[in-house]
């Protein structure tokens, strides 16, 4: 009985490669490295988006939470402006009012805005300069 000898490259793993063996060797593909890289970028982008959205939600919540205090704040500003305006107008005739205006300017309660256009702003109301005492 004749026995067929085994193929040389199967019998010996260190069998030198011939052209035929090279033809059947696995070819290098960049699919998996690229897939892993792109997956990483995708996960990073998704996480960034999630973090930014969470931040936006927190900011929106804080903004809404402050909504109730905006109206009283605006009212306080208007009240101060009205009181200061009345006081300054009165200080032209009343020396006591003049004294209060002077003290308030010194204490920093009232501010003289040189570039005042006479319109209401959201900034701290500015009072015109105190006139000289009428004494």
């Amino acid at each position, binding site marked *: 009985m004749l026995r067929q000898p085994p193929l040389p490259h199967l019998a010996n793993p260190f069998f030198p490669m011939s052209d035929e063996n090279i033809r059947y060797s696995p070819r290098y593909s960049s699919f998996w490295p690229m*897939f892993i890289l*792109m*997956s990483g*970028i*995708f996960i990073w*982008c*998704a996480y*960034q*988006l999630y973090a*930014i*959205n969470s*931040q*936006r939600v927190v*900011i*929106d919540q*804080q*903004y809404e939470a*402050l909504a109730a*205090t*905006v109206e*009283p*704040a*605006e*009212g*306080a*500003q208007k*009240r*101060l402006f*009205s*009181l*200061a305006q*009345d*006081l300054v107008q*009165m200080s032209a*005739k*009343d020396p*006591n*009012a003049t*004294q*209060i205006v002077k*003290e*308030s300017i010194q*204490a920093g*309660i*009232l501010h003289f805005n040189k570039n005042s256009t006479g319109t209401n702003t*959201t*900034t*701290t*109301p500015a009072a015109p300069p105190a006139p000289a005492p009428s004494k």
Partner: protein
Amino acid sequence: MSLSSLIALLLLLQIVFVRITSADQVQLLKRQQLISQGQQSDRSVRELAARIYQLSQQTNDTALKDLLTRQQITITPPSDASTNAASAPATAPR
């Protein structure tokens, strides 16, 4: 849709969200500033009203009393006779 298209879409979304968040943050800061100024104004009104009341009581100046009335500011004198500025009469602007 390939993975690279998805990434491009996510990046675009990220840019849009960053811009929206920045705008929201500016609005929040503006509102916080407005409230802070309002609180400061409220303190100023109280100090000013207390001083006007104090001086009107000392000098019996009816014009100053009228000013407080015009501004709808009512002062509740403290129960004790303390004249400390810190415990100045509480103002209750309406």
